[in-house]
């Protein structure tokens, strides 16, 4: 197994979010936007399970990839203390990424909070001519990766809950305006469930296809334990399916938000 890698860089993006650059030619080459990695935090049983983290961006030439991570609990805290040269135990890339159809010429990505991370590489890799990004944060101090996103798209909109930066309000409000201006070929959503649900419902009205990236607590990360499920349609019925293997990216009309 090829799962021990070196950390090349670690950098704080804001008070509680940091970017880890990790050396792995294999992952940098193989990873598709939207895929995840499953990260061991520290040794032993103290933080027992691995943590699922989206691949934020890859540098295929240098053979590195970036994870953008928000400190939430003890696992992410341990990762935030890792230093260049330290070794990290990572399984991946895992799961299904976003669909990059050449015929999609105009796309919009919509991200909220930590949901913005997998959208960065998507913007970089997507072959569309017109790519817009709508990113939402709680307030000004949490706005991150703005330049990186700006450089990777043709129009960046930022919304904050309190209006302290960009527009005040929800990313779905901006999405609505943009969709009404001109229908995109595809929309990609990643963020809180309420946001993705609202987005999917909105886009349905306009018949715009979309993809969402789901979150769920995980065990194995590879599809074997069936702990990380979300509800998806199956014919007239529904089933629980693994976010780690069949997802984290699903078609918007496939997921049942309830």
């Amino acid at each position, binding site marked *: 197994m090829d799962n021990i890698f070196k950390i090349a860089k670690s950098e704080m993006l804001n008070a509680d979010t940091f970017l880890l650059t990790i050396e792995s030619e294999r992952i940098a080459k193989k990873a598709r936007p939207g895929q995840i990695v499953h990260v061991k935090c520290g040794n032993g049983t103290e933080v027992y399970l691995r943590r699922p983290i989206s691949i934020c961006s890859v540098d295929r030439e240098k053979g590195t990839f970036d994870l953008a991570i928000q400190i939430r609990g003890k696992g992410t805290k341990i990762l935030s203390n890792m230093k260049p040269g330290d070794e990290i135990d990572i399984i991946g890339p895992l799961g299904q990424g976003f669909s990059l159809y050449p015929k999609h010429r105009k796309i919009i990505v919509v991200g909220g909070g930590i949901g913005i991370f997998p959208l960065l590489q998507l913007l970089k890799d997507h072959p569309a001519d017109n790519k817009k990004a709508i990113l939402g944060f709680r307030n000004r101090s949490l706005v991150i990766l703005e330049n990186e996103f700006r450089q990777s798209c043709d129009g960046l909109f930022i919304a904050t809950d309190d209006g302290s930066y960009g527009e005040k309000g929800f990313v779905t409000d901006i999405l609505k305006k943009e969709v009404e201006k001109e229908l995109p070929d595809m929309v990609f959503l990643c963020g809180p469930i309420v946001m993705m649900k609202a987005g999917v419902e909105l886009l349905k009205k306009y018949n715009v296809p979309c993809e969402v990236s789901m979150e769920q607590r995980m065990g194995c990360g590879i599809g*074997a334990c069936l*702990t990380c499920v979300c509800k998806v349609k199956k014919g007239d019925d529904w089933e629980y399916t693994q976010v780690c293997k069949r997802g984290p990216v699903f078609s918007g009309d496939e997921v049942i938000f309830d």
Partner: protein
Amino acid sequence: MNSNISLEVNVAGIKLKNPVIAASGCFGFGREYSRYFDLNRLGGIAVKGLTREPRKGNPPPRIAETPAGILNSVGLQNPGVQAFIEKEIPFLRGFDTAIIANASGNTIEDYEYMVKTLSDADIDGIELNLSCPNVKEGCMSFGSTANGVFEVVSRVKKKAGKPLIVKLTPNVTDITEIARAAEAAGADAVSLINTLLGMAIDAKTRRPILGNVTGGLSGPAVKPVALRMVWQVSKAVNIPIIGMGGISNGTDAVEFLLAGASAVMMGTAGFVNPMAWVETIEGLENYMAENKVKSVTELIGGLIV
């Protein structure tokens, strides 16, 4: 692999090339882990718990991390025994490893059906799950009394054309009584432990973390309880025991063998380290080499008290 060392064990007629088996529910039907290592390495694979009809399982979240362990509340999500037979056995038979079908049901009739059906299938043994804590009917409600176990096992035994392993729940006052009931009813072996019923709460949201409120505890945290139960059961019955609960490496496996297990199963450890099973086999080999143990069978029940 040291050629002077024999890892072979025979558990109730199931020949295992080594005593390390993937535990049910933690290994799917083997497909996922087959990308990480050669399944031929394993002594056996106990597949995801099967039922007569497909099951959807419990609402998520289905997993919570606890100190040195995890809680799960999957609730026997599975494609049903027919799909297993049609789609999964052919895949698994591509490997030289024992296939153990883990079977559950709501009623005794379900269990009879399962054992009959699986006896006709191309597998090596049947593990009767009388111990899943995550479903409302069947399972643990049979498994938590000696009478319940005796009744189910004696009924299904009549239909069994394959070695029958009865999987016991640790959520009982006296596991030896349950194990003896299984033996008396005709079980060819017992496996233990299934998960300990537990719960996790998020103080911030004041809600249970698991969608199903309670879940089953597994992983290193439960190892002391599992070891104790294996040891107690090994003194109570004469049929072989498959031990499990928190095994993560070769030393852990040796401890279970010493306590009286003829083979071990490992589940949770593989979530953290996909190589856990293989490394455990290697660890066991190293222990044997260092301690001049020629056959792994010498370790079984070798605890000095």
